[in-house]
Each structure stands twice: as structure tokens, then as C-alpha cells.
């Protein structure tokens, strides 16, 4: 047992923190206000190798551990949650499955530019009628010679408007249920692919989320990731890793909210003394500190287990469930501690409050996490 970080992990965390505090934090309110995709931030992440952190170096990645990734995600998200999710999707949801299931041609052609951050990826599973119930997706891919012809609609696609490469889950056999799903790598410039308007979201407003419309999009068969029919497995195993990313994002938002509340509690005076002296405020801080740390331990544990190659679905779900809940509660308390000032945009906590909420929804709602955990507990 060892709860300390090694030299490399500390270095990654500190590097991420420095970048985030210096470059991202000063602009995060503006990113939120203008809903502008923070392209400059993504470029800086790419320079540090943070867009393909876990990918082997020979495929353009940084070859770092999942724990290092979790640490960096927390730091980046503490400064700018929008940047955090852009990074999380590219790392966890696109690079990770490409590396695990891709052949050398696909790694060379698609993974390497994504891992180097020259290109940006998006993960396209959700549809208007298939969210948590992913196996009911309807986008179809029909084989025609050495191509698939893709038709359908995907929505809530993070990085949707700006991505160069999409991982698209399609039905290649509509009769086979979840065994009829396959994964296709689709270039954003493909003919017949159209992007919808950016969703007007409550939080993470810098992240570009939109629908994608596929009309007779022709995709070479060599762009199929893994076997035909293996898509559901690819999708679910990918989400396990994604949950570590989102748990870390939630930790970052929660930590930022807690730090803002800690600072405000010391400055703000009522009845002749700082509100930090009041037990009502101390109680909120103590609960926030404790819940955040508990969630962080769960998250780091899931990351460490992932790297051992053992099964970690339940651990990742626990981490995501606990971290997202902690984040929402901590942001809520941070607003409460700020009183009326917490409700206005001059202070960042109302943004943390809005940003935190998404972590209970995407990459599996809290309800889906509970389902995953319970199934694992009840498995005979």
C-alpha cells in the first residue's frame, strides 16, 4: 500500500497545474460567457502531450499512466471545465479505443495525429432515441463492396463541431441487437456528413456539443475498428476509462469551488469576524473537504487498477458516481457560502455550480453507474 505519488506523477500534476493556472484560469469566465471553443487551450495541451497522455510514444502519445492522466484532468478542469471535457473525450473516448482495438494502419493514420493533438476526435454513441440505452441505436451502416454506407443521426456529440475524426457506432446488423453494432472511424470531411447547431448548454459552455447527420456517408471498410459486431463491447469498455476522466473532471470542478469558498470564508466578515469562524461555514467546508478526498481516492484507485489490466468497471463507476455527486454538493455549498455574491457572475462559483451538474449526466448518468455497481455486487 502506498498513497504517495511518484516523481513523474508529481511532475505531471505540477506541470498541468502551472499551465492551467497561468493560461486557462484567467480566460475560463470568458470561455463560459462567449461559449467559444477554447482552441488555444487545446493547442497548449497538445504541446505538452496531454491530448494523448496514455497512448504509447510510438503512436504519438506521452506513454503516461492512467493515474497521471487523472491528475492532469483534475488540474485542467479546476481551471476550465470546458477544456477538461475536450481533453477527456480525445484521450479516453477516442485515443484509448483506437489504441486498444486498432490495427497498425489505423493507429498510424488516425490515432497518431489525434494523440499528438494535431487533430481532434469525438465519440459518437448517443442518438435522440438511444442514450443510456445505447444498444437501441439506429444509425445504420450497410456494406457495399469495400465501403459501408452510413445513415442516421447522432446527438450530444462533445467536440462535435470541431472534431476531425469521429468514432461512430452503427448497426451493421439491425437484427442482432447489441451484437449488431460496429465501430467506424469517419473523417469529418466525408460527403453527406452534416453538423447541427451547437447545443445551448447550462454549463461547460466552451465545449462544442452538437448533433451529426449522416446521409449516405461512404466509409472504407478499412476504417472499421475491430470486428463487425464488436462495437458494443468497444463502446462500453471505452466508457469505463471515460468515467475515470469525468470523475477527475468532477474533482477539479469541486476543488475549484471548495478553494473559492475557503478563500471567501476568510475574507468575508459578519458580526465582526470572518465567516470562517462560524461553525455553520466550517461544517460545510469540512464536509466538502472530506467528500472530495473520498471521491479522489476512489478515482485514483480506479485509475491504478485500470493500469494493472484487471477489470475495473465497478470501480470506475463508483469513482464517477461519488466524484460527480461530491462536485455538485461542493459547488452548491460554495454558492451558499458566498451568499448573494455566489449568484452573480463576478464570482466563479455560479459557473462551477453549472459546470458540475454535467458530470452527473454524461458518460453514463448516476443511475447507469448505480446499475453497473449493483450488477457487479449481485453477480453470483
Amino acid at each position, binding site marked *: *500500500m*502506498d*498513497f*504517495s*505519488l511518484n516523481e513523474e*506523477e508529481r511532475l505531471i500534476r505540477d506541470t498541468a497545474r502551472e499551465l492551467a493556472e497561468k493560461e486557462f484560469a484567467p480566460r475560463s469566465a470568458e470561455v463560459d460567457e462567449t461559449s467559444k471553443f477554447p482552441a488555444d487551450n487545446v493547442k497548449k495541451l497538445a504541446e505538452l502531450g496531454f491530448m494523448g497522455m496514455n497512448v504509447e510514444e510510438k503512436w504519438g502519445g506521452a506513454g503516461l499512466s492512467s*493515474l497521471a492522466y487523472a491528475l492532469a484532468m483534475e488540474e485542467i478542469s479546476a481551471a476550465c471545465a470546458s477544456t477538461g471535457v475536450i481533453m477527456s473525450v480525445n484521450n479516453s473516448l477516442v485515443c484509448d479505443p483506437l489504441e486498444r482495438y486498432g490495427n497498425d494502419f489505423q493507429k498510424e493514420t488516425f490515432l497518431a495525429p489525434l494523440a499528438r493533438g494535431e487533430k481532434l476526435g469525438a465519440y459518437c454513441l448517443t442518438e435522440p432515441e438511444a442514450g443510456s440505452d445505447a444498444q437501441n441505436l439506429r444509425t445504420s451502416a450497410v456494406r457495399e463492396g469495400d465501403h459501408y454506407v452510413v445513415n442516421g443521426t447522432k446527438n450530444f456529440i462533445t467536440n462535435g463541431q470541431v472534431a476531425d475524426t469521429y468514432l461512430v457506432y452503427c448497426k451493421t446488423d439491425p437484427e442482432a441487437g447489441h451484437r449488431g453494432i460496429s465501430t467506424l472511424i469517419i473523417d469529418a470531411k466525408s460527403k453527406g456528413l452534416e453538423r447541427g447547431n451547437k447545443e445551448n448548454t447550462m454549463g461547460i459552455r466552451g465545449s462544442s456539443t452538437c448533433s451529426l447527420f449522416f446521409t449516405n456517408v461512404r466509409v472504407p471498410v478499412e476504417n472499421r475498428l475491430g470486428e463487425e459486431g464488436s462495437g458494443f463491447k468497444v463502446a462500453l469498455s471505452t466508457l469505463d476509462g471515460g468515467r475515470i476522466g469525468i470523475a477527475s473532471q468532477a474533482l477539479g470542478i469541486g476543488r475549484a469551488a471548495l*478553494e473559492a469558498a*475557503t*478563500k471567501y*470564508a*476568510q475574507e468575508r466578515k459578519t458580526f465582526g469576524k*470572518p465567516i*470562517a469562524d462560524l*461553525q455553520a*461555514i*466550517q*461544517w460545510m*467546508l*469540512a*464536509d466538502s*473537504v*472530506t*467528500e472530495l*478526498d*473520498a*471521491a479522489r*481516492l*476512489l478515482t*485514483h*484507485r480506479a485509475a*491504478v*487498477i485500470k493500469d494493472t489490466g484487471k477489470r475495473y468497471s465497478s*470501480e470506475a*463507476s*463508483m469513482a464517477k*458516481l*461519488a466524484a460527480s455527486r461530491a462536485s455538485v454538493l461542493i459547488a452548491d455549498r460554495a454558492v451558499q457560502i458566498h451568499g448573494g455574491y455566489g449568484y452573480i457572475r463576478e464570482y466563479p462559483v455560479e459557473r462551477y455550480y453549472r459546470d458540475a451538474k454535467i458530470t452527473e449526466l454524461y458518460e453514463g448518468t448516476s*443511475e447507469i*453507474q*448505480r*446499475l453497473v*455497481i*449493483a*450488477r457487479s*455486487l*449481485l453477480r*453470483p
Partner: protein
Amino acid sequence: MDFDLTEEQRLLKRTVREYADSEIAPQVARYEDASEFPRPVVMALWKDLGLGGMYCPEEYGGIDLDPVSYAIVVEELGRVWPSLCIIVSVHNSVGVQLIAEHGSPEQKTKYLPRLNTDWVAAFSLSEAGAGSDVGAMRATAVRDGDHYVLNGEKNWVTNGQNADLTVIFVKTDSQAGNRGITAFLVEKGTPGLTVGRPERKMGIKASEAVVLSLSDCRVPAASRLGKEGQGFKIAMAELDGGRIGVGAQAVGIAEAALERSIRYARERQAFGRTIGEFQAIQWMLADMATRVEAARHLVYRAAWLRRAGKPYTREASMAKLYASEAATFVSHRAIQIHGGYGYTVDYKVEQYYRDARVTEIYEGTSEIQRLVIARKWLAEHGYGA
């Protein structure tokens, strides 16, 4: 980072679990029903597994466990019998350990070997008017030649009636507040030491909490633990460790309630299927398991920090706060999953529910833990410097 137990720790965990399941579990109901201190069970634990000397150096016959291993043992005992768990935990952490760390060579030679084999230790700090606010204590010790004369009344003394040796904290200087507190080792049967009737409690019934009356109780000066005025420091240093112990106990209770709930959810049928197939039950189980896991790692982390010689006051308080609240939450849900059967004593979860409750109270209430966490946290962020 490495969240795994070492090979040695896994072996220890397995050994204690097997022993607890086969030797201890069958005896729980009898002692709990009678609210009786399980002296034979405790003595067997000392004899069979050496658990009377978990924090005792090997040269005095102890097994000298590291704090993580200690937490593992306490958790396993808590899982099977919370009362026994606290008896053992108090004996080791605020009995044996205090003597091992602060005792004179004579005190160690005299007491440690006995505490490893056939004695039980107790710890006496609280008074009716001085719980969390230790400095408000009123019991006194006045020097008289080569003796001290102790007077006053202490309460909530765990193991108090059965203890062969009790570490008692009293004031040697009533004007000096916390700095006027001194610790003494008082043997059972010392004239002037009267043990009151055990409190009748909601849970942990086989563990006794008694009132100790000191009436001109003469104790040799050689029985003073540490120096005059050091008592507060001695007591407080061990409170952090004690919190890891109660945190581990709470994890054990929560784990037991969770295990029983999973088993019941797999077996019990309703509307033609097992209740585990209903989301209402799945939700509860998922939340329970998540909290148990988080609590366990908070406890291990605090213990690991202690072992590494790093500061761990805030982490111990977080572990204790979170684990105790997890234990009450999980045991509450366990009853709910069991429905009416959970309310009967046969299914044991009602015992865990009652037993869990005390973990939010002793070794510093949840309110004290929050105070410690908030103060430390604020200080780490430059407040009050």
C-alpha cells in the same frame, strides 16, 4: 500509488476473518443478549492470535503491527462483532500503546507482558461535564510524599469494569487548564477506586461503559505515566490513532451490513423475481458499496500516513467522520432492504444499525471531527496564521 494490501496484510486479514467467522461469530448473540463482557473470548484472542499486543514491541511479547495492519484487524473484528472490536481497540490503542510509547522502563516491564497475555486495559478521560471539552475535567491528583491521591468521578470508561489496568487522566494543577492534566496507571482493586454499574446502551451491549469513582485513591508516584502536565498531550496524540480505529470499526460494521444485504437481495423473492432485480434495491446497494469503499480507503490512507510518520490529524478525522456516517447510512439501508425481517433480531442487521450509531459519537463526535477538519483545512490555507 498502490491500493493493494501486502502479502503479509492479506494473510493477516484472512487469518483474522477465518478465526472471527468460526470461533467468534457463534458467541456474539449470547453475550449481546446478556449485555455481558466477553472475557473468555477476549482472552482467547490474546492467546490464539496475539491481538492483546498489536501495538506492543516484540521485546515485551507483542506482535507490533503497523497501523495499516492494525486497521485491517479492527475492521475484521468490527465486521463480526462491533462490541468485541471496541474492547480490543481500546485495549490496544489507548491502553497498551500509551504505555509502550510513554511508559517508563519499569512500567513497560511490569505491565506490557501481562497486557499481552491475560490483562485488559481501559482508558479514562471523559467526565460527566467534560467530554469533547477535555480541559473542563475536575478530577484531581494531589501529591503526597511518594504517592498521589486521586479524587473525582470519570465516566464512559470502556472496559472499565473488567480492566486490570486503567489509564486515568486527572488534574494535578487545576489552574493550568489543559496543561494541568496528568495520566496515571491505576490497577484494579486499588483502594479508593470504585467501579459503577455499566451504562445500559442502545448498542455495543457487550462492551461496558462505566463510571469510575475516585475517593482518596492512593497511587504510587511511579505509576504516573509521563510527566506532570503531559496528560493532555498524551491523550490527544492517541486520539488521532483512536479515530483510525473507530473508522476501521465503522468500515467493518458497514461491510457486514452490506454483505448481508447483498445476500438477502439475491435470495428474497417478490413479484416473481429476486428483489435484487429491482432498481430500488440496486440503487441502495450501489450507494452502500460506494460509501464502504470510499470509507475503507480513507481509513487506510490515514493509517498509511501515520505509518509513514507524516501528519495525519485531518485525515484521521476525515476517515472517522466519513466511515461512521457511512456505517449508519449503510446499516439503515440494510434494514430497509430486509424489510420487516430487518427489524427482527434474527437477521442481525438491527444490531449493526444500533452498533453503528455509537461510531458517530465516541472518540470525538462527528461535530468534533468537522471542527478539526475545518480548522486544519483553513490553517493549511493560511487562516489564523
